């Protein structure tokens, strides 16, 4: 079920995959055990002439002991899953690093625009760089994203980075990631945003720092002209 996961290219994508595989193992065990048990009992306890069913109401602790046992196991596993997940969640969504690069993402029906603060490091100044569609980031640096939307709710989804975040109009929502592999990756809008939702595609370009700087300089020059 999980063999189709896209490649993992960020510092936390491995953690998320770890949770996925961990849950997969637990769930897989219960899946095999319970489905197996159902098939077993359907065969084992099928109707036979002259054999009467057992009268068993399950109202006593003795009769319930197996169920209680399994349920305790389930509860414990639930908490294990949650406590493992809590750390990953906090890492991805709660405790943001300040970020080496800050980029503002502007979503609108039906396109992505990325705003780089330019040399002064401030947004909404004259030297802001506005780049459509392709998000360029340097590898191995912490990217701080400021997600905004001009109209409806969009969702910023980088499958390979395992990052997804809905963008609410009227709010600035923060996200971050750190890429660990260079290349071109996917960017989808994963929240129905209207007629052109399907075509609201972008891409993520992870570059070596030198390449990134070169690209940044070239684009700055282009835009200032």
């Amino acid at each position: 079920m999980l063999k189709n996961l896209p490649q993992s290219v960020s510092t936390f994508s491995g953690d998320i995959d770890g949770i996925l595989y961990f849950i997969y193992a637990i769930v897989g065990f219960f899946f095999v055990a319970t489905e197996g048990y159902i098939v077993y009992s359907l065969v084992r306890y099928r109707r036979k002439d002259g054999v009467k069913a057992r009268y068993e109401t399950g109202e006593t602790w003795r009769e319930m002991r197996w169920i209680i046992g399994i349920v305790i196991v389930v509860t414990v596993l639930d908490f294990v899953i949650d406590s493992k997940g809590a750390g990953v969640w906090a890492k991805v969504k709660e405790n943001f690093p300040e970020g080496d690069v800050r980029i503002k993402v502007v979503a609108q029906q039906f396109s992505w625009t990325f705003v780089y603060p330019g040399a002064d490091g401030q947004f909404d100044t004259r030297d802001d760089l506005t780049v459509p569609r392709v998000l360029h980031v340097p590898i191995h640096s912490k990217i701080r994203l400021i997600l905004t939307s001009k109209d409806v709710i969009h969702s910023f989804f980088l499958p390979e980075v395992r990052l997804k975040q809905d963008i609410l109009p009227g709010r600035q929502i923060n996200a971050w990631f750190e890429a660990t592999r260079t290349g071109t990756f996917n960017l989808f809008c994963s929240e129905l945003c209207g007629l052109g939702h399907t075509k609201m595609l972008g891409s993520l370009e992870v570059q070596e720092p030198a390449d990134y700087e070169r690209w940044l300089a070239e684009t700055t020059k282009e835009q200032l002209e």
Partner: protein
Amino acid sequence: MEPEKKGLGYFAIWVWLVALTVGYLVERFIGVPRHVALAVIFGIALVKALLVAWNYMHLKHESRIIFVILLIPILLFAILVLLLLPDITLVHRGN
């Protein structure tokens, strides 16, 4: 259905309700600090609502099941508002 004239009569309750409504106005003229005023205002509203529910809706004579029917939605309302406080009220709105 229920014993008559136990405690306050319907008319006395009405007098109380009117008095409490006028109480709003008094509070406005005295000029107390805002948070005190708000506490008083909603305290009065709560008292009035309880008076109506308790006497006019005969809750004081009702069986326990009615309280269950009433308390569940009130509790859920409280949960809904409390859980949404951080998300709707205390959020920093940018842009």
